[in-house]
């Protein structure tokens, strides 16, 4: 879908046959996934390392990506999870006092296929019209468009596939770092640890753990498939259900565990996929969205006080509000499309939020939800 430059050495092929040629800014290789767009202007490094993007190829709508380079503090996990990156322009130089490695080197070090010089607005409009698509991204001298389209078509997609298993930690670990201050780098949180929290890692972002640490939580991160009994045996003050990639529906092990945890009466807080799993455990249904929510400017209304929160969002599946059981109350709704953004149980100290209150990237407007989790633990304790 564009004239080719002589320098073109990379291609994005979509399942519908659309081709986007550009310049490789990553490794020479081929990769498949679902291509989605994200409208956040800042925070590309956080996006690249967010495990929720596993099996997704991300295009960023802001044209210059890479301006501030990369640094170890802005990683949301230990690796780059996207299956590919598509941008309009990679700047010639990085400029930020915290930058330690430029984006191209970072992508190559993490074995990522990435393309620049693409009309990302054209791609975004295409996805808006036709929905998120299966795609193949390829770079190197042996680009074969037909082969790439085939590869795109053969990608399994996200529906009905359990990606959580693949990104979750294999062993449990403790988390101590707090969020980054204005002047200081990231370091252990020195707040008094009042709450024992077990966090299920379905693909957890580090900033969630950092915020919890700031608020006085002593955190143990456990694998997605940890049975409820094992968790409850630790006698935590609360359980946290993390974000994660793909479709929540096939994660039956998690749904089973969450049901048991809810029944134990412990406070539970779910974010993004965690919120979806929580809703599924309580009997609601989820479905695939057309192109999902991926950005840092999404307005969400808090239904109890009417306040509008500007939130960070990243999900391709959502909980259908119509399927909520009677004791699960809708607490937040998107002002973009009216979709359900938060739930709270009537009886149990259990709630979930579809957006990302930990931000990173994105605004901090919904951060107070973490305080609600603390309040629930406080109430539960007394």
């Amino acid at each position, binding site marked *: 879908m564009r004239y080719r430059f002589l320098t073109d050495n990379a291609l994005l092929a979509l399942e519908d046959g659309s081709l986007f040629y550009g310049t490789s800014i990553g490794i020479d290789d081929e990769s498949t996934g679902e291509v989605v767009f994200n409208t956040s202007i*800042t925070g590309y490094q956080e996006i690249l390392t967010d495990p929720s993007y596993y099996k997704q190829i991300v295009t960023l709508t802001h044209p210059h990506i890479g301006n501030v380079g990369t640094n170890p503090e*802005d990683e949301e996990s230990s690796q780059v999870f996207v299956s590919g990156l598509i941008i309009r322009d990679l700047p*010639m130089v990085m400029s930020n006092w915290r930058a330690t490695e430029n984006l191209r080197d970072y992508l190559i070090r993490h074995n990522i296929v990435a393309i620049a010089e693409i009309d990302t607005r054209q791609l975004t*409009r295409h996805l808006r019209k036709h929905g998120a698509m299966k795609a193949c991204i390829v770079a190197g001298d042996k680009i074969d468009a037909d082969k790439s389209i085939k590869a795109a078509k053969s990608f399994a997609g996200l529906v009905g596939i359990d990606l959580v298993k693949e990104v979750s930690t294999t062993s449990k670990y403790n988390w101590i770092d707090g969020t980054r201050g204005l002047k200081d780098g990231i370091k252990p949180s020195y707040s008094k640890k009042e709450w024992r929290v077990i966090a299920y890692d379905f693909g957890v972002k580090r900033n969630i753990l950092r915020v919890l640490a700031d608020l006085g939580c002593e955190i143990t991160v456990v694998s997605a498939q940890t049975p409820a009994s094992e968790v409850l045996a630790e006698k935590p003050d609360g359980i946290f259900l993390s974000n994660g990639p793909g479709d929540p529906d096939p994660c039956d092990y998690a749904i089973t565990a969450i049901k048991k945890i809810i029944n134990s009466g412990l406070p539970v807080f779910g974010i993004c996929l965690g919120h979806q799993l929580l809703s599924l455990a309580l009997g609601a249904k989820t479905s695939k969205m057309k192109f999902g929510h991926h950005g*840092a400017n999404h307005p969400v209304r808090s239904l109890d006080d009417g306040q509008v929160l*500007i939130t960070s969002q990243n999900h391709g599946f959502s909980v259908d509000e119509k399927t909520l059981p009677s004791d699960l109350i809708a607490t937040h709704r998107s002002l973009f499309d009216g979709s359900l953004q938060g739930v709270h149980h009537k009886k149990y100290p259990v709630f979930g939020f579809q957006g990302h209150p930990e931000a990173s990237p994105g605004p901090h407007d919904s951060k107070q939800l973490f305080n609600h989790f603390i309040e629930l633990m406080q109430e539960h304790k007394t």
Partner: protein
Amino acid sequence: MPKRTDIKSILIIGAGPIIIGQACEFDYSGAQACKALREEGFRIILVNSNPATIMTDPEMADATYIEPVHWQTVARIIEKELPNALLPTMGGQTALNCALDLDKQGVLKKFGVEMIGASKDAIDKAEDREKFRTAMQKIGLTMAKSEIVHNQAEAKVAMEIIGFPAIIRPSFTLGGTGGGIAYNRDEFMDICGQGVEASPTNEVQVDQSALGWKEYEMEVVRDKKDNCIIICSIENLDPMGVHTGDSITIAPAQTLTDKEYQIMRDASIKVLREIGVDTGGSNVQFAVNPENGELIIIEMNPRVSRSSALASKATGFPIARVAAKLAVGYTLDELENDITDGATPASFEPSMDYIVTKIPRFTFEKFPQADDRLTTQMKSVGEVMAMGRTFQESLQKAIRGMETGVTGFNPIVDQSSKNILEQIEKELRVPRGDRLWFVADAFRHGLSVEEVFNICSIDPWFLVQIRDLIDEENKLKKEGVTSLTENRLRQLKRKGFSDERLAELIEQSESEIRKLRIDNNIRPVFKRVDSCAAEFESATAYMYSTYDVECEAAPSNRQKIMILGGGPNRIGQGIEFDYCCVQAAFAMREAGYETIMVNCNPETVSTDYDTSDRLYFEPLTLENVLDIIHIEKPHGVIVQYGGQTPLKLARDLEIAGVPIIGTSPDSIDLAEDRERFQKLLEDIDLKQPPNRTARNVEQAVKGAEEIGYPLVVRPSYVLGGRAMEIVYNEDDLRNYMDNAVAVSNSSPVLLDRFLNNAIEVDVDAISDGHDVCIAGIMEHIEQAGVHSGDSACSLPPYSLSDKIQDKIASQVGAMARALNVVGLMNTQFAIQNDEIYVLEVNPRASRTIPFVSKATGISIAKIAVNCMVGNSLASQNLTHVPVPDYYSVKESVFPFIKFPGVDPLLGPEMKSTGEVMGVGKTFGEAFAKGQLAAGEEFPREGNAFISVKEIDKEKAVIVAKELILLGYKLFATSGTCNVLTKAGIECERVNKVREGQPHIVDMLKNDTIDLIVNTTEDKKAIADSYSIRRTALQHKVFYTTTITGAMATMEALKKRDSIGVNSLQDLHKGVIA
């Protein structure tokens, strides 16, 4: 929470005349506010003294007062209209100050008017330096450390607290006289010492230096339920030290990580909460230390601002419109984001998938004596904005939108200079308006990015991209035209190079590059500004060009009229032309055409995305305009409404086959070409002052001998009287020819016999090609020789006989017919001893069109544009424009106070930035209101000083008599004093400056003079009396530099106590208070 129902009527205060720092962005915000609140059913009462605004169009409000934005006048309006609420946040600092005055004087309380949009406390907290500092401390934000110093002991203490480098600023001196930057102990004590000496209050402020820090702005909107959104982040390319209005700025911010951006976002919102901006938009400015991310807050504005206009245009989110709705009770989530046709609510944060660059436009060439180094005091008069998919594209588009003759990064450094590097380094370190080009030259002369950064602190992210552009230029220059393969040309276009610049680099013509480009099918595409980075569908046709793949222009098949706008504001071409373009758009939409606007000035109403059906935010260059025309194929293009900018393109557009409607480019040329025009006047038997055209010095001297001195001399084809002078003798003429102009065969110099003490008259007329209708005859207050844009004028004329006026009207008709004018025509005449001389004719919209429209109640621009599309005057039922039975006076406003060292004397070169209008039953009352609106306060009584040139002495006697009657005591210099004494007028003699102390300037400095009449001619007398005018300006003493101005002032002084207020709506019905 829906809108308030306890409020029925709202008073909106406008910003008054265009001045440096307050331009037409407040017409844009005010017009939006009027529209937004009127559609909610509120009765809108508007006050603004500036007639050139769209907001003062009688259709915009229910009651429109073109009256001084001064609390006493506004109090009268409040008393008459009894509004429930006052919205002070749409008219800049002027409106805020006026609102605070109304509050302080008890007017609001007395009439039960509620201030909405910003509370008095919030304004106070934001504006008062100390209160603001305390508030910021409370929320944990740091400001630059600052101390006040009066003496040596305090200086020592301050030095310990502030450290180095420190910025030292004497209080209450203009332009920072006596201040400086101290890098060590000795400098610190020295500068503090001289600063205390220079300050009238013996006080200096010492600030921690954040020089070289990165500067950012956040545009924030907050509603009464504490919903907060950031509309746009803006990054200044010029680091701290240059006023943000004078800085090149980029949106969105480019060199912040998300972590840093969110810290700034949180801080901005905290600031609004703490200051108490409960409903509306604010601008918060920060500085960031590039070495460690340390963040300090600089200031905040609790109102819409120049930056919020920029942010609105940059994102497509109408801040002023939304702020107005919030002020009447709505919350953000109750409002729609119009640009997506309501697909999204207003409660979100725009996402941008393009880069916006703003470059300020300066007019230092008008003020050669002014210090043109950029500092913390704003000096620019306009700005241009451009969008592109990359910074390079956006920057190069902005550069060519400026219309300063540059086509890109043209070399600027003096190549013959021995110390090129030294010159470059100086220009990088202490910036002027052209630093950007010196950055490019630095790279051309081998400096590295690191070296350039070390000198000027511009972020390397920007520098590297500029260097890349220079590398591309060098490569192309070396490799020549043959290297321009399709691929290479496309790559260069993607980096934003103009055809013209490419042509220069390989010594081809622009048209050859254009042909090469089109032969290779390399054309720009048009992308939409939709506030949401394409996440939602937008039907709004707000577009910019870029060299990318997909074109979203989707032109319609309707009949279209395209209007070419005026580009950046500058002295000589400002808001008046934007007014005309907007009127044209409105009229053509009403007539059923699809309207297309092309302009690149972010401050304007014309670039509001709903002014026209389609908006192309593009530089007004031949290349960009032709590319749009290629896509749109309009039925007609209007070039006569946007000032000189589109007119300059007319010929080339016509050659390219573009359908220009209205007066033909050939007729425009006929009126501008001295020799052709002279022939035409001879044919229809009209008079011009004796004149000659000179193509070299000797021709000029010979011509001058033939027609006699004094002469008005000027280059041909200029607007705003650029380089226009009056010369009194051969020496002056030779000096002018040698130094002031680059005369050549293709650009001759025009010599006109200067008509002493002639009355100048401006006439605007409309012609449909058959009939001609006089829209207004305006008599200038200042005599011929003062630029028409600078002189005050009266409609109807206050001293011309009906017979003369009739003669003028018939001459205008004859010329319009001879020139085949279709549309507008402005003519300037000089009347000397009842003899009428034609000075010039411009078959296009003039600066006075909005004034005439407001004065007469007839929308001249709308009628004329209808003529252009073939609707005769008769079919529009316009046979004549009735002459009102009240007087309207237009007065000009000048930037002299901002430019120390500049002589505030009026002359043939235009220097005013804006205008005001005063209306009254008598000429005196109208003139008095004009003066008040221009910010002049007449002294009630006291001492008047008179010193006039020989030719004015007779009239000086009349003025003196009036002054005595009004209760003034008179002082005069010897010559004038003799004349007055002989005429039996009591008068005290004062020394001229060169006659020794105590002299007149001493009296001014001691504040013993309250009014000055000072007229001079010839270079020496002007130089002698300079200090009188400058001191008067600084001591805010009322002065006039023409005898006719003095006569008018006498009329005004007599009427100063009988000032009424009138709405345009009443005036146009013939009702006058």
